[in-house]
């Protein structure tokens, strides 16, 4: 079947089942009632505390065929996923579905657990490192389901994703199950991606390496939602969890793009009191935030909120009073971890509140502007952030499709060429964010506006910005780097790209490796 962006998607995928057709960014509506987990009880005096994962597995009768979930707040420092899978493997379990909100290089041991039949299914927003390459080679018996940050809480709410055991890495916990991410040796700040798991999993297990005396106040997730607490030696490597201070890029090309992006925001008319904004932690995105901050300062504009993954740079803007609030679903660096602990205007938010399209109102819907990256963008403004130009998995959808759908203006920033590869293409290899939700592309050679946004185009032209047609940008890239040879992707399906509404927007086929 051909979906709304012209992708040919099978109606049934082996190892996944029937496929819901993508109908357009806003055309699929929710049906039915919310899924509910079992009603729970903790008896008076009953201990929740375990001293090893193996004890927990035995006590809970965790068995083959179950679904485990994990958050990715510990990023490339995470060791919990590996420890849980190691335990499951030792106990002889098979056929486990893993729902991990994003997979990093540290999760490469999963390759062995896939090979030995422990892990047979994976749902994630994206995969990095050795695991990504192995998945691209097709080692998993079922296609990996690639969802957005907002799509995942939607699937928990709808019951499409039923989690048997949620293993929530908790940088600090007490023995009743109150947990927080803001303190402890594995502190990671916000635990936003774990909130929906605590609401919907059959067994909610907090795993900590820092047990504190009761009561832990304030708790991110409270004892009324956490069924069990496991104390282990270490959740992971703090070096990989949060980076040091995130710095603005010094790359002149990145700064040039950021400068243009900031001028685009100014010319859009959206930069006024109450301005709400999201940007990535990448160098150019952060630089754009820096230039936007300068404009706000100069024009005495007080923003409303900044959203998403939060960096120390956004903390500075909050503390300066340029924004009223930070809504933090993920804290990227030490400064943001410290800030969320001390500043009541820096709020921890769940991925459901952040971006779920099927709840009573998510935060992305109130974004004025989001600045996002791309590994490729095509002449229809469809964006790929999941696979490289060789079709290998290399990135994460994250909140990209969600924020693009919600924001009044979505700005993609990228260089026109990466090494010698044109980034503006006729057709992206993998579509993760539909063009109808993307408004502006900013490159070092000028910007292009989605034809559906003639209003913006007029404003940018009037402001003297270097507006070009997207075909013109593509042709310029071809002129400099040559026309790349088209790669045919006709291998088996190794991944399904789920749009935030639960439909399948694209499939990832095994590249020729």
């Amino acid at each position, binding site marked *: 079947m051909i979906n709304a962006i012209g992708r040919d998607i099978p109606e049934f995928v082996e190892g996944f089942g029937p496929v819901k057709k993508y109908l357009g960014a806003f055309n699929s509506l929710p049906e039915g009632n919310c899924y509910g987990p079992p009603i729970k009880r903790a008896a008076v005096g009953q201990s929740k505390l375990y001293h090893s994962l193996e004890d927990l597995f035995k006590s809970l009768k965790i068995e083959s065929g179950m679904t485990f979930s994990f958050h990715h707040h510990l990023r490339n420092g995470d060791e919990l996923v590996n420890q849980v899978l190691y335990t499951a493997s030792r106990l002889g379990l098979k056929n486990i579905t893993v729902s991990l909100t994003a997979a990093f290089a540290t999760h490469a041991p999963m390759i062995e657990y896939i090979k030995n039949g422990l892990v047979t299914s994976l749902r994630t927003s994206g995969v990095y490192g050795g695991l990504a390459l192995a998945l691209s080679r097709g080692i998993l018996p079922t296609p990996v389901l690639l969802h957005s940050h907002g799509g995942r809480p939607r699937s928990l709410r709808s019951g499409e994703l039923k989690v048997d055991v949620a293993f929530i890495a908790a940088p600090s916990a007490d023995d009743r199950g109150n947990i927080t991410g803001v303190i402890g040796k594995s502190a990671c700040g916000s635990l936003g991606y774990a909130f929906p798991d605590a609401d919907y999993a059959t067994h909610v297990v907090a795993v900590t390496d820092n047990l504190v005396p009761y009561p832990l106040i304030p708790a991110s997730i409270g004892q009324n939602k956490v069924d069990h607490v496991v104390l282990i030696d270490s959740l992971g490597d703090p070096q990989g969890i949060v980076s040091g201070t995130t710095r603005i890029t*010094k790359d*002149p*090309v990145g*700064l*040039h793009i950021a400068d243009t992006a900031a001028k685009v925001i100014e010319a859009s008319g959206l930069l006024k009191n109450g301005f709400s904004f999201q940007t990535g932690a990448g160098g150019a995105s952060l630089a754009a935030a820096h230039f936007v901050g300068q404009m706000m300062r100069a024009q005495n504009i007080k923003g409303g909120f900044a959203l998403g993954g939060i960096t120390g740079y956004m903390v500075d803007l909050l503390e300066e009073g340029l924004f009223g609030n930070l809504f933090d679903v993920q804290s990227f660096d030490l400064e943001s971890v410290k800030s969320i602990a001390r500043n009541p205007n820096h709020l921890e938010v769940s991925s459901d509140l952040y971006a779920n399209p099927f709840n009573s109102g998510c935060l992305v819907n109130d974004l004025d502007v989001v600045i996002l990256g791309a590994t490729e963008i095509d002449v229809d403004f469809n964006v790929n952030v999941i696979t490289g130009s060789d079709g290998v998995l290399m990135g994460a959808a994250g909140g990209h499709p969600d924020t693009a759908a919600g924001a009044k203006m979505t700005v993609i920033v990228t260089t026109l*060429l990466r090494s010698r590869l044109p980034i503006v293409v006729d057709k992206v290899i993998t579509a993760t964010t539909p063009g109808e939700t993307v408004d502006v592309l900013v490159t*070092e*050679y000028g910007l292009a506006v989605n034809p559906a946004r003639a209003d913006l185009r007029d404003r940018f032209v009037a402001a003297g910005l270097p507006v070009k047609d997207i075909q013109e940008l593509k042709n310029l890239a071809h002129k*400099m780097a040559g026309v790349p040879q088209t790669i045919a992707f006709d291998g088996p399906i190794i991944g399904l790209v789920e749009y935030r509404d639960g439909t399948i927007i694209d499939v990832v086929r095994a590249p020729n490796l």
Partner: protein
Amino acid sequence: MIVRRSALFVPGNNPGMLQTAGLFGADVVILDLEDAVAPNEKDAARELVARALLNIDYGQAQKCVRLNSLDTFCDDDLKEIVPSQPDLLMLPKVHRASDIKELAGQLDKLERPSQKRIEILAIIESPQGLAEVYDIARSHDRLMGLLMGAEDYTAMVGSLRTKGGEEIAVARALLVNAAAAAGIESFDAVFTDVNDEEGLIKDTLLAKNLGFTGKGAINPRQVKPINETFNPSPLEIDYARRILKALRQAEKEGSGVASVGGKMVDAPVAKRAVNVMNLARKLRLLGQEDE
């Protein structure tokens, strides 16, 4: 009117930077074959720069190539680069007027008749070059300007290179004066601390006040501060506007003398006001009332 406030050096052996050099608003891009390129990479860089000149759109920027010095690889550079039609060639280590004449002579031989005449920009970076700077400045009509090479100069003089630049005060003044006397442009030395924007602006303002017409940049991030510093300030524009108005008024009243703020406007002051307004017009810094 050609505006040359900033002259951005780009390594001639870096394809990525050659490709993007025109994006940052530099008035001149200098594709460097000299210091940025190791001797065993000169041939590859030459070929790369020649192709960049022919194929890359540098927009408004003038295209310049920094050659190797006359006593090293300059001949080979010229054979490869001249057919690619740069606007300017920068000659380093110019010690005497005959250096410029020698290069000009080679250009006479190598340029095709249909080709736009290539101009020369000389780097003065030795005590001898500075001692003979006026002779150099008026040595040939291809010479469009002089650039101060402060790093080599201070090393050869034996002075300590500092951010304040006291050690090159005399050198700067001599170079500016020689260029002004010969009616050519003068470019100040590069500011090497690329992370000190405040220092760069201070250094650029000093250069502007000394009479330099432009300044070298070694990082694209330096271009914008240099351009903005060399742009006529609102105060300068306003002063020029008042001078021109006073002159018009005096002319209307048949008086030979105009004055602004109690000071008489003589010919050089009037000329300077015209230059400021022309530059401001070219840079689109003027409002409708000035047109």
